[in-house]
């Protein structure tokens, strides 16, 4: 056998190093994967990710869009081994994810800015995360098709809006809230979703599979008005569409706080806490409150921009009557509500 020469050995060693280098570098780099909105609404999250990356060399953030429910299903399918580290989640999704055991509570002592939160919002995280913003649920309408928008939720049942109304399916948090709203608007409890479904059935709404698709239906003139997130409406208005937004009451104005939650078995727990803290800094809250997102701020003392008044509670009366759905009574029944919805509406 021919003895190994020094040149051959060094060549082989250099080749091995060259082959292994990308893996070694990758091991040094840390990528946080989060579930976001999948739209321009991710900008404040990406901005916070960049700040985190500047503080910690090699740290980056990847924001993946999609419904929280889909992420929960993926984690369940992968037997708890989450492909994601953390997520922005609304209250109902937090309740569903907690029931499935895929969340780990944030250690709020590692998020100092939590001390600056408006005390109204932390309860909506149900002990699992930290609120970072809130979204309004109102009625978006096409100004050309609906000259006089509704002022209360019960107004939707007035004959003048018949045949123009859209609704999101209850698998989205928006759709779930709508079913509950229809019950409370007529004196029932949030949990009386059968009554809520029956009331919506009276309206014969055109149904969108998701808030995003409902927004598109509104933009294409297939519907004249629909319950929608304020930020979806804000983005559509910013693109020049003739849409308006009514901050309806009775109940409301309605809001849904959005929280940062982390999934079990994440290897980046400390970074997630720091990321959450960045999102609660005054600069981050001001950035998120700017048009076209107009995210509702959850930190005390932040003054929202003037344009936000069109979408979010702004007067003392509105702020005093601001409310959300009784999610612990509604969210655990999401599967049953979706099935009941199909029984009533599928055609």
């Amino acid at each position, binding site marked *: 056998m021919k003895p190994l020469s020094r040149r051959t050995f060094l060549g082989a060693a250099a080749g091995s190093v060259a082959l292994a280098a990308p893996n070694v570098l990758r091991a040094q780099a840390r990528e946080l994967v989060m579930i976001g909105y999948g739209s321009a609404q991710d900008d404040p999250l990406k901005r916070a990710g960049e700040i985190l990356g500047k503080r910690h060399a090699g740290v980056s953030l990847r924001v993946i869009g999609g419904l929280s*429910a*889909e992420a*929960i*299903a993926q*984690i*369940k399918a*992968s*037997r*708890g*081994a*989450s492909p994601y580290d953390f997520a922005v989640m609304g209250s109902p999704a937090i309740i*569903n994810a907690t029931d*499935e*055991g*895929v969340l780990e509570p944030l250690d709020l002592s590692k998020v100092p800015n939590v001390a600056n939160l408006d005390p109204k919002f932390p309860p909506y995280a149900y002990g699992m995360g930290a609120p970072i913003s809130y979204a309004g649920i109102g009625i978006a309408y096409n100004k050309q098709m609906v000259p006089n928008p509704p002022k209360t939720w019960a107004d939707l049942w007035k004959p003048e809006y018949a045949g123009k109304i859209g*609704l*999101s*399916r209850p*698998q989205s948090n928006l759709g779930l809230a709508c079913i509950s709203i229809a019950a409370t608007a007529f004196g029932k409890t949030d949990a009386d979703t059968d009554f809520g479904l029956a009331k919506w059935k009276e309206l014969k709404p*055109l*149904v*969108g*599979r998701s808030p995003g*698709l*409902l927004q598109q*239906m509104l933009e*294409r*003139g*297939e519907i004249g008005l629909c319950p929608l997130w304020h930020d979806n409406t804000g983005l559509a208005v910013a693109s020049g569409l003739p849409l308006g937004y009514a901050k309806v009451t009775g109940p409301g104005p309605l809001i849904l706080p959005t929280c940062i939650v982390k999934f*079990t078995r994440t290897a980046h727990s400390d970074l997630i806490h720091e990321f959450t803290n960045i999102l609660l800094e005054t600069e981050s809250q001001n950035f998120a409150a700017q048009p076209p997102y107009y995210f509702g701020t959850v930190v005390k003392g932040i003054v929202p921009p003037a344009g936000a008044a069109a979408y979010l509670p702004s007067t003392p009366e509105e702020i005093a009557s601001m409310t959300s759905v009784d999610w612990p009574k509604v969210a655990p029944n*999401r*599967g*049953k509500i*979706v*099935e009941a919805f*199909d*029984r009533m*509406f*599928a*055609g």
Partner: protein
Amino acid sequence: MSKSLHRRLLDEILSGSGIWPAVPAIVVLIVVAVIPFCILLSLGFSEITVARGVIVSQEFSLRYLLTALADPLYHTTFQRSITLALLTTFVCVLLGFPVAYLFLIGKPWVRRLILVLTIAPILTSGIVRTYAWIVILGGRGVVNSVLIDLGLISAPLRIINTQWAVVIGMVQVHLPIMILPLIAVMSRHDRRLDEASANLGASRLGTLWNVVLPLSIGGVGTGAALVFTLSYTTFVVPQLLGGGNYLNAATMIYEQVVYSLEWSKGAVTALILMSTCLFFLLVFAWLTNLGTRWTRVAQR
């Protein structure tokens, strides 16, 4: 002895004889289709308890299957899915056969054009093609704009978010799948039979009906089976064109697994979907066999 067996196996692998060339595909099929299907079946016949994302107990149960079979929601959803798939298949046969016939009788440039036009749509994503229909059929889409400009209607028709939008989208997406097997069968067609038919006094339509169509039944059967399977199990087109209250079997499974997180229900629905699909495929195979029996006798 053992050594010679090893040697023989090695020779077979290296020479590519026996089943060895198919082994990689068989392994892939077992890993990505057979094993997941068995897991799915086991979920459909079980009561499962999940904790922290992990199954902690699983007991045999027929509850989900029996409940599904008696549930009116399942009846209407599967009835809708079958109707949609049969309608799509019928329209695809109706539209695809003339195109394939044109391929048979056309000049070389016509044949090339047909092939390009048939294959080109397959090169783009089905989602993109389906989204195109939203633009075409929407309230301010091409169809409504033309109808309004012609004065035929005063307000836009609601086409999108209806069953008809789903049928239109499905036909467009699946038509090439019907045309290609038809072309493959018709390419082998012996044109002297047409001449013989004409010499015996048959009109062109008569020849088409009595000679070309019976000889193309194999292609019709294959295309119909493929289109039916794809239409029956489709997810994207109903999602995008059917609107939020359009429910077919595939979207039902998706909702049960993803939103309701009820795997057993989803597994049972998937099982019913697959069983009924298999039943219809057997019917298609039987009909094709019936339609081609006399041609096989003639060939003997």
